[in-house]
């Protein structure tokens, strides 16, 4: 991942376009709300395999919480940002804005 090397201080778990989109979508939910896997997939226009791969990476970093529930005997997977994930996303956007306003020569260091 060449992107990480060129932009210091950015969370490598979030700084990848598919995972960034997942984080933005989850951060857009009202506080405490959970979204099912299919609705999230539809929201992001991602394939199921692709979305689960990225969700697993985000779950490994404790940024998302995945809950398996049953509704009328059908298993339903709910996804939500953890507090840690919310903080990481806020830190990431803060870092981006700082990089944007920072003098460009610092980026090369």
């Amino acid at each position, binding site marked *: 991942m060449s992107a990480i090397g060129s932009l210091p201080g950015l969370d490598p778990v979030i700084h990848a376009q598919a995972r*960034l989109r997942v984080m933005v*979508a989850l951060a*857009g939910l*009202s506080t*405490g*709300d959970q*979204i099912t896997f299919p609705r999230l997939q539809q929201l992001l226009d991602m394939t199921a395999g*692709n979305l689960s791969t990225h969700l697993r990476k985000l779950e490994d970093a404790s940024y998302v919480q995945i809950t398996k529930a049953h509704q009328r005997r059908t298993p339903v997977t709910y996804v939500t940002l953890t507090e840690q994930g919310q903080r990481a996303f806020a830190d990431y*956007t803060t870092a981006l804005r700082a990089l944007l306003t920072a003098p460009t020569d610092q980026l090369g260091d």
Partner: protein
Amino acid sequence: MAGRDTNEGVSDDYPLSVGESLALIERQQRETQRRLRVNPAMFYGPWGAAYLLGFGSVFLTYPTAVPLRLPGAVAAVIIGVLFAAATVVSIVTGVRAGRGLRGPSQAAGAMYGWSWTLGFCTLAAVNNGVTRLGLPHDAVTLLWSGSSLLLIGVLYLAAGALFQDRFQYGLGLWMLVSAATSVFAGVPGNFAVVSLAGGGGLLLAAGYFTLRPPCPRR
């Protein structure tokens, strides 16, 4: 797998610059809001049309300055069909918006939705109970137009407070003013007030929410 992602052909390991990241965030935020938030216009539009045309046709069953005169049965059919249609659109919109979501905002939305049903069922019980005591016909129609607009107004005040939306709160105030005005307008002026101020107001609100991008809320 990443190649099938439909985000403008940018593959996942494409190195994101700061600018691209910020643009991606903004784009995805807009898209998420657009797809997750219900535009209130979806409720205001059908109900505004139902009130404007429905009560407009009731107004036209009375001898008025308007040269057109409608039979009562025609007005009843117009009002029945439009109200049924608006009810169906509201339920479908509400249910579709909540698909695949659960949590505090969904519970709040469901409780708010049920407030309308419970409020109007109770209003019907109270008004019918009072009417049974033998009210004059004009008093019955004034009771209905005034109390319905009052309830609608209060529910919009609640929506304004719940969804932190001053515009909806303002719409509630407008409905309260319309409620009082309709009673003092007398019959059949009350139907004109319900139609034009109530229905027309809702249609203007629908127009406002259609043109205004829905603001993100937490």
